């Protein structure tokens, strides 16, 4: 294993946090602006359907959230539970893929 993989994971954790900071602000601002005057679920779906830019934005949001939470949980597992090594890595990779699949399928439901 590359000796500096731990640092690169830490860097990915920090960069994903920076991206999430921006995404969350855009998301909250979008929500607040969108619901001015009230919107039903059907109206929301009508507006998001076919909006591929929004789909790309929320897909990146999902990947950043999955990256950040998985690497964070990996550190917690190692430092608090003493659980590390290949078994923890496999479980956390599965967790990362699960989050990505759930998030992107939800984005697909809105956009497609």
């Amino acid at each position, binding site marked *: 294993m590359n*000796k*500096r993989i*731990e*640092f*690169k994971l*830490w*860097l990915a954790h*920090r960069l994903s946090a920076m991206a999430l900071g921006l995404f969350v602000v855009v998301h909250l601002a979008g929500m607040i602006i969108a619901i001015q005057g009230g919107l039903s679920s059907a109206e929301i779906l009508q507006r998001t359907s076919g909006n591929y830019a929004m789909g790309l934005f929320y897909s990146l949001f999902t990947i950043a959230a999955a990256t950040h939470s998985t690497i964070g949980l990996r550190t917690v597992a*190692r*430092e*608090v539970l003493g659980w590390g090594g290949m078994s923890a890595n496999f479980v956390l990779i599965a967790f990362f893929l699960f989050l990505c699949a759930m998030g992107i399928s939800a984005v697909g439901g809105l956009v497609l």
Partner: protein
Amino acid sequence: MEDNQKKIRVSVWRGGEDGTFESFQVPYVEDQTILDLLTHVQRTVDNSLSYRFACRVGMCGSCAMQVNGKPRWTCRTLVRSVIQDGELKLEPLSNLPVVKDLVVDMKPFFDKWQEAKGRFEPSDSPVTEFVPIKPDDKQRQKADEAIECINCGCCYAACDVVELNPNYLGPAALNRAWSLINDAKDFANPERLKAVSGDGGCQNCHTNSQCVARCPLQLNPTRSIAGLKKAVSLATLKGEI
């Protein structure tokens, strides 16, 4: 002046890793240090007590131990400033193997200094022109802040990341690496940047700043480690290491 009427109870760690506390009643003397108190115990009560000291004036960094649960220099800590309910608890420094009583084996601590390339490395080629070091140079000021460390191990004993992850290089070794990275006459980079970002590297620091809180010299290893994180991140993103 010794006040024979007033005594304090001192619980001192005796033995190795599996040792236990032994209590001593010692006279309370105004302005005595923890080191004075230990010397009293060793000279008048039990001469088998082991503890480490050299300079007695806060220069050598050899007398640190846990005093009421916190790492401190015994030579510069007054009993009256740390005593709680007339009692003191003295233990060997945390996060290091106990040799006997209050003496720890500092080898893991200094091994990590070497691992972090905490040694000055001059240029391989002969020096033709000396680098001017100006006191107001920003890089030099960063080195100046970190360079006063005397290797006492208080920060290492206080660091909860070292406690959780024994591979972590620790605040002192990383602080030393930061002082050398900012030394214009040192030529160990980028190898030193690689050395401080391995599995036990700077990225493990949680910025809890226990090292800052416990440093008897009021140094700021957390800031040094933050500098290392930034330097290694930039070098990694640029593909230099």
